């Protein structure tokens, strides 16, 4: 019950924010929402399914380029163009997932890392379409509010989706793949089909997001589109909050976004190094993240609430 109230309050605050605050706050929140979306998407494939992707910016960058090109050459309105970016990300992720998900562990991570670098090299090299390193320019977006609301809707949608996933058969099957893929396969979990589905699911929102980000910046170039810093920050957020949890990415994104904003404003020269230090600190000191810690201490209810209630109800019926 209290969870629902918190969610409603959050929703109301997010909805009211652009009406009542300065452009700076809106601009900051746009970036925060962006990372919430990226973090939740990454959490689906890497947190729940256990396939650590070091190249999820591939989909972000593809979406950014697709949407920018749609706006420039087909004069499509930017919200639709962003959806087009998402569609391209999905269309690429499907066959890619079938191929890449045959790799496991470190191999998948390196493969995805190489893939993002390959896309970046292509964006640099295919200058007749992408203008190479010069980048593509869009008409500047004066009013950030429409972008803000779209991002907010996407972010809340993903939180809700993750909540549903956490309490679903599909979610449990993904967790089974994470814990022991061969075992899950032996028990009849259709691992290939399910992990490809999770991969595609985790590619869609970054694709849309990339398009919205390009509109927000009114500019895109290969280092921005396929930035390793975006990748690293996203991973840090999920890791900090807790991989494979419903609220972990949100907590991580909020805490680290605020932290980064402070660091970036005060120490722009050592910003990236600080992000690296933060990740190293989390890996060494609390590799499971904040949320699992809070759950163990009993400050938060454990995950998979609906399934847990179902399980505890089944026991007396049998006895």
């Amino acid at each position, binding site marked *: 019950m209290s969870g629902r109230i918190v969610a409603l309050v959050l929703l109301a605050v997010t909805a009211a924010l652009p009406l009542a605050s300065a452009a700076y706050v809106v601009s900051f929140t746009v970036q925060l929402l962006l990372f919430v979306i990226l973090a939740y998407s990454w959490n689906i494939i890497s947190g729940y399914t256990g396939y650590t992707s*070091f190249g999820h910016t591939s989909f972000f960058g593809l979406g950014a380029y697709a949407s920018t090109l749609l706006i420039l050459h087909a004069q499509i309105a930017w919200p639709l163009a962003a959806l087009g970016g998402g569609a391209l990300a999905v269309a690429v992720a499907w066959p890619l997932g079938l191929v890449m998900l*045959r*790799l*496991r562990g*470190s191999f998948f991570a390196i*493969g995805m890392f190489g893939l993002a*670098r390959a896309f970046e090299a292509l964006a640099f090299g295919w200058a007749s379409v992408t203008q190479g390193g010069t980048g593509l320019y869009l008409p500047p977006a004066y009013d950030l509010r429409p972008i803000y609301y779209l991002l907010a809707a996407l972010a809340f949608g993903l939180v809700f989706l993750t909540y549903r996933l956490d309490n679903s058969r599909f979610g449990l099957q993904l967790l089974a793949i994470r814990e022991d893929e061969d075992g899950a396969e032996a028990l009849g979990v259709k691992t290939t089909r399910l992990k490809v589905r999770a991969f595609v699911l985790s590619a869609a929102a970054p694709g849309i997001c990339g398009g919205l980000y390009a509109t927000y910046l009114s500019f895109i170039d290969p280092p921005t589109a396929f930035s390793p810093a975006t990748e690293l920050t996203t991973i840090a957020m999920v890791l900090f909050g807790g991989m494979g949890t419903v609220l972990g990415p949100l907590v991580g994104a909020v805490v680290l976004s605020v932290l980064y904003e402070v660091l970036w404003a005060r120490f722009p020269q050592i910003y*990236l*190094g600080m992000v*690296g230090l933060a990740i190293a600190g989390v890996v060494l000191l609390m590799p499971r993240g904040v949320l699992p810690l809070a759950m163990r201490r009993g400050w938060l209810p454990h995950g998979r609430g609906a399934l847990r209630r179902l399980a505890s109800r089944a026991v007396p019926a049998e006895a």
Partner: protein
Amino acid sequence: MRTAIELLVNGVLLGGIYALMACGLNLIFGVMRVINFAHGEFLSFGALLGVSLVIGFGVPFLLAVVLVAVAIGLFGFLMQAALVERVVDGPPIMSLLLTYSASTVFVNGGLLIWGGGYQGMPGVFSGSVSLGPMNLSQARLVAFTVAVVLTGLVYAFLAKSMFGKAIRAVSEQPEIATVSGIAAAQIRYLTFGLGGLMAGAAGVLLAPMFASDPQMGARFVIKAFTVIVVGGLGSYVGAFVGALTIGVVEVVGGYLVGQTFATALLYFLMIAFLLLRPSGLFGVGIRR
């Protein structure tokens, strides 16, 4: 025909330096199944330190190679002792994230020390040598020779010395090696140090050919990944053969389709190998 031979030779020369970097990376992977994302920073620190020594202090080039190799080797040793050792038994993602974040910290540190600009090593081996009908850059020939000698020395060290045998033992059978009285932790420090030493030397050797900057590591580490995937993860000889292959593919591909597409080609080659022949040309196979 002459162009073809010249491209081939240049590819092999470039591959020799990749070998120095990739053999160390593969040695580390073989011993502890850790993929060191910070290996590129060993290289870039080596290059920049080399430039500082040679240009700033007038140290002779070959002496600088030795000094820098020792310094970066020590750096690698300390990195293993202070950081990677703590996650070596954990899930692979932890060591990946740790070395990845270490790499960003090092890049940032490099930017603070050396600034973001490109630094060259003008006047060092800038001439060229005529070899039959071909003109070869002096810097490339020297770099190749030193790299191959060093790779060979490390190979001999692994094959003959007690320490080298211990490294191979831990790489092949960690439990049995430990039971037989080998201090696995010390071997891991030593291996990381050795990897750092080789990558640091490779950095200095690259400095006369390419301008160096603190962010160059990422470009080279991904090439080293490609090399060890193609050559076979964990195999020292495989990394050497893989490096020469990648050098040739890069130079010939660059001539045929242009530099940027050649880079993309390398990544696709890596992904193709991961999928079709994950043990590479000489690999020890995947231990999950």
